């Protein structure tokens, strides 16, 4: 364990020779516990609980005493809700969509707020870049859409329809069935989680490279000092880009969850 008060970067810097710049690596994502040495009091866990507090407070306040002419806060809360309800649930799932709106709404707001923590000053860590959070979210989506399919069509018919897709000539089953089994049971949850994780991890790493690199350039000779504003400028541009990626990844995760549920609910006839 790393002793308290010493960061990973300090350890690496003491071992680096020459220019002394330590490029950011995956070690920068392992944050020490905030107090004590209990592994469950780290910054990502604190950020996740903070996101729950923020989301709950915002939506409870914005929906109480709902007036016909909404106030600004109520309008903001309602906009997010109607976006998930109409564009994500109703358009994708179809006629049985209302019972999935709470789940999709929770997924969307939870992932969005946690992603946005990556660019909010003082917090500046996207909790979805710790891979266990996307894994668990993808696991819940996986359980939900298989459960919905089994409830709707019965277990035997549901699995048979997955493995032997109707409307396909029988000779093609040799090709298609292994692919379908792999897709439905392995590839879908894996890609769902890793897509979110990799985008957040790479985005945070990019921001670290340009901002820490700019700071390091600033401490060099005059030639390097003149270049460092460009590094910071690229860092600013990347922050805006990162904002777009974070919103997009939250939307994509929820959209795919809705699509998988819609696929499980679909009637073949």
């Amino acid at each position, binding site marked *: 364990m790393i002793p308290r008060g010493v960061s990973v970067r300090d350890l690496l810097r003491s071992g680096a020779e020459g220019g002394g710049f330590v490029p950011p690596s995956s070690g920068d994502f392992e944050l020490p516990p905030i107090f004590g040495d*209990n592994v469950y009091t780290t910054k990502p*866990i604190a950020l996740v609980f903070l996101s729950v507090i923020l989301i*709950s*407070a915002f939506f409870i306040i914005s929906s*109480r005493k709902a007036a016909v002419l909404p106030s*600004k806060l109520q309008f903001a809360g309602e906009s997010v809700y109607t976006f998930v309800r109409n564009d994500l649930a109703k358009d994708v799932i179809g006629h049985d969509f209302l019972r999935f709106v709470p789940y999709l709404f929770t997924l969307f707001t939870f992932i969005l707020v946690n992603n946005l923590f990556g660019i909010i000053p003082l917090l500046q860590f996207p909790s979805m870049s710790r891979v266990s959070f996307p894994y668990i979210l993808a696991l819940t989506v996986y359980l939900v859409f298989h459960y919905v399919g089994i409830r709707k069509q019965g277990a035997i018919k549901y699995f048979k329809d997955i493995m032997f897709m109707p409307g396909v000539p029988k000779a093609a089953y040799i090709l298609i069935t292994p692919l379908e089994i792999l897709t439905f049971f392995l590839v879908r949850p894996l890609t769902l989680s890793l897509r979110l994780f990799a985008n957040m991890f790479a985005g945070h790493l990019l921001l670290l490279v340009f901002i820490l690199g700019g700071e390091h350039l600033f401490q060099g000779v005059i030639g390097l000092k003149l270049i460092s504003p460009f590094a910071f400028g690229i860092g600013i541009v990347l922050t805006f880009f990162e904002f777009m990626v974070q919103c997009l990844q939250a939307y994509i995760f929820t959209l795919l969850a809705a699509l998988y549920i819609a696929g499980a609910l679909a009637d073949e006839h």
Partner: protein
Amino acid sequence: MSSREENAMWSIFGYLLSGLLFWGGIGYGLDKWLGTAYLTLIGLLVGISGAIYLVWLRFGRQ
């Protein structure tokens, strides 16, 4: 936003934070006493779910 809404928002924030701190603290103390690692997390989860339920009881229903 009106000051009534602002007060309500701060008190909701206070409820949630105190639920986390209280039950998280109990979990943390139990961890230190029993030498386990996971009781802190269980305490935090109990705290946040109880706090959300309390906030819904107090603020969510008119």
